[in-house]
């Protein structure tokens, strides 16, 4: 599980408007945030814009985060990054040139330290669960989530009927939810 007590403490620091707390959160999750934005946008410059906007939203709205929610600070942050990235993608489109080649050699995270081990464990668990999905379910989910396509657009792109696409998304997510259910929330 993401290191929850530490994240909650960082968030409290952000609520108190301590820049050091925001930067500590950035140091902890900035690479994940940027990786997510980059996957969606394909352009480092715009991806950085998405990440900055997302962290500034956390800076301003930390007081509204409800700790009693199921998922923690990390999930909240990444949801914001995702929304920003999809929003920017809808406005700017997605870069499709040299950056796609770069993606194949994307920079991995810094070497594990004890604190990061727990986070990598659950990342591995989620990756395994997604990889275990039937390909077409995985594809439908990724096209929707990372590329921001509507189910209609996915049906067009894949040539599958609309109803089939909807079913793949729903079944795929249900399977994923079941696989993740035995264990801490990401």
């Amino acid at each position, binding site marked *: 599980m993401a290191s929850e007590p530490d994240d909650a403490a960082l968030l409290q620091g952000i609520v108190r408007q301590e820049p050091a707390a925001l*930067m500590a959160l950035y140091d902890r999750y900035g690479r994940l945030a940027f990786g997510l934005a980059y*996957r969606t946008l394909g352009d480092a410059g715009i991806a950085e814009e998405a*990440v900055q906007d997302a962290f500034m939203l956390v800076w301003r709205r930390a007081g509204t985060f409800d700790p009693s929610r199921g998922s923690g600070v990390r999930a909240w942050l990444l949801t914001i990054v995702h929304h920003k990235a999809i929003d920017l993608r809808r406005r700017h489109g997605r870069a499709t040139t040299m950056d796609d080649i770069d993606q194949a050699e994307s920079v991995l995270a810094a070497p594990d330290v004890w604190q990061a081990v727990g986070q990598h464990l659950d990342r591995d668990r989620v990756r395994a669960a997604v990889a275990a999905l039937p390909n077409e379910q995985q594809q439908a989910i990724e096209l929707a989530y990372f590329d921001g396509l509507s189910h209609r657009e996915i049906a067009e792109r894949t040539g599958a009927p609309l109803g089939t696409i909807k079913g793949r998304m729903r079944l795929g997510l249900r399977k994923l939810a079941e696989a993740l259910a035995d264990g801490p929330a990401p």
Partner: protein
Amino acid sequence: MEPKRLDQAHEDLRELLGAYALGALEPGERAALERHLAGCPSCRAELGELRRAVVALPLIVEEREPSLALRARLEAAARRDLADAAHRGQPDAPAAPPAEIRPFPAVPASRRWLGLGWAAAAVLLVVSAGLLLWNLQLRQSAGPGRGVTVALQAATAAAGANGAVTYLPDRGVVLLAVHDLPPLAPQHVYQVWLIDAAGKPVPAGTFDRSTATHAVAADPRTDRAIAITAEPGPLGSPQPTGAILAQAPIPSA
């Protein structure tokens, strides 16, 4: 409609849940599904499950190193934002003309501070005098979604202190900016309290500079006032032991 058709209609809506959780529905479909969800606990339950899966998806991407410049830009932006917000809270900052003066809801002093256990009669006198003569300057901060600011009232024990309290509604945060609090005794800190409608104080953080900005999550519906005392440090006290140095009502928007 026949029961079979109703079931089919419901099933058709349920089929949209995955796409909805992924943000892949078009606006018209979204609206229709949301109307249905408002009245259907079983669909809401399924949606909750699907969302738990969606929230995990960001973890499957490779992490990627952004530029060092991004970190610097972010830090600069946060500091600038803080300076802007604090500046708006200063009594001497340029501001729009004063809005209507709203009197603080009149509550008898004794009932208000009941249960705080502050023995000093002098303190009670100061507090009640302050409440009765309370004259608020309400300045509407510039810009939409910004805060409403009230001046901080200093007790006679903190005669040189001044400052302001700003509630930022879209952040759910109260910003306290204070200048020239009386110096602390050794091993003491300033402690902030949120006071509810019954006069009960709740600890809301500490700081140790006599001129400082302090922010705390607050909700004007329950947190009616903010106060500062000096307490033994470094953690402060669970209930106030020192005299109130400064206080203000928390303005609601």
